[in-house]
């Protein structure tokens, strides 16, 4: 199946300050160019976990991409999700998973894959890089794959923002020290390089300065995470709970909702 435009899937550029709900409401417009732009923004944030969920449900790459498009067009941007939110006041992640589960159930019952509506203005996806990345979740339940990918996509956006902010502030070395000492060892499950080695590699005078750099970037990371999670909850008060809920799910190996 031919794919048309590529969408730039990555973190938000900061132009959208409102929560996801306002974003979704903005997408429900007759202005095609605005609809396409907002749809791209929504898909960019949320399509990866939906895609991984669908792959774990047994859909192949093309089917999963079509279903992602259909789900966002019909359910996320339709009235259903907003109405569900009004009723439940639940977290967006949980709501999305519930709606997705109901959507795939209805698709199975219909026994046909939903197709992209021709000329609908939807943005095409390119899952060529994501498909192999979902392979480690081949033993996970669909709900687990959804949550793991949700958390990973969130972390990717946070890390991208953090790096961009550091470089913009003239703290490129700060970022690299934080990446090498903190992020890399976790991501690669490897031993962290010593502060002395990092000082030598990056031309940093001593361990005290390096420690200060790491703490500075960690604060940026925390702020960026809170900012991104704020988009997914109803209020600032729920940010911490959402992060802890995600951590509990990931630590327990469960799927959560």
């Amino acid at each position, binding site marked *: 199946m031919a794919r048309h435009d590529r969408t730039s899937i990555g973190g938000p550029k900061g132009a959208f300050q409102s929560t996801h709900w306002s974003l979704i409401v903005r997408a429900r417009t007759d202005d095609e160019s605005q609809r396409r732009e907002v749809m791209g923004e929504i898909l960019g944030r949320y399509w*990866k976990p939906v895609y*991984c969920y669908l792959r774990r449900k047994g859909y192949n790459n093309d089917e999963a991409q079509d279903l992602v498009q259909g789900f966002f067009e019909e359910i996320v941007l339709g009235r259903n999700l907003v109405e569900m939110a009004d009723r439940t006041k639940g977290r967006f992640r949980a709501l999305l998973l519930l709606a997705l589960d109901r959507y795939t159930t209805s698709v199975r019952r219909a026994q046909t894959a939903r197709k992209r509506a021709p000329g609908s203005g939807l943005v095409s996806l390119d899952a060529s*890089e*994501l498909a*192999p*990345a*979902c*392979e*480690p*979740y081949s033993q996970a339940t669909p709900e*687990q794959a959804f949550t*793991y*990918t949700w*958390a*990973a*996509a969130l*972390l*990717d956006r*946070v*890390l*991208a923002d953090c*790096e961009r902010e550091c470089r913009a502030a003239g703290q490129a070395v700060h970022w690299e020290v934080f*990446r090498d000492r*903190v*992020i890399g060892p*976790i*991501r690669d*499950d490897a031993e962290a390089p*010593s*502060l*002395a080695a990092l000082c030598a590699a990056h031309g940093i*005078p*001593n*361990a*005290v*300065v*390096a*420690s*200060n750099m790491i*703490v500075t970037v*960690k604060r940026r*990371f*925390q702020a*960026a*995470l*809170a900012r991104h999670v704020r988009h997914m909850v109803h209020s600032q008060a729920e940010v*911490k709970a959402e*992060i*802890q809920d*995600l*951590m509990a*799910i*990931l*630590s327990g*190996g469960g799927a959560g909702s």
Partner: protein
Amino acid sequence: MADASTVGLGPERLARLLALGANTPGQEDKTTADILRAWLASPVSVNPAEECSVPALLHRPCKELEPLAGKPLSTVLLDPAADPAVIVTLKDYFKAISLRWKGGPLYSSAVALYYAAIAAALVLQGCKITSHSYYGLGRSLATLVKKPWLVPELAALFAQALAVCVARMTT
């Protein structure tokens, strides 16, 4: 950015990455412990041209530290044969470091090392290098000993120093 995406990482590693942003007390404790271990393992910086070096922060040459260049801090602090002047200098240095931050892991670890210098002098050299009373010093050490981020070698040193303080208070 050439960094790899985190999509595909297992849940345990994702949780650890997410925990960095959670700013929970446990996470801050871990950061404090990491910084403490890193400082103890690192050489004392004696180059006055370096940012945050001992001479730079104390605004004096610190000649007494020059023979120790390249030695890890833990070796210097826990050496019974160390020059008392060196331990005093390190005490002053970490006090100066702690004054640069208002709280958080860097402040906590600098305070711990400030007391480590005082405790080392008391236990290993029999010298009291602080104007704190034995009572006040004992209270501070008793508080630090209970910190979850305190590394074992300092915990042992503080416990010994606390015993010395108690003994001196009762004599």
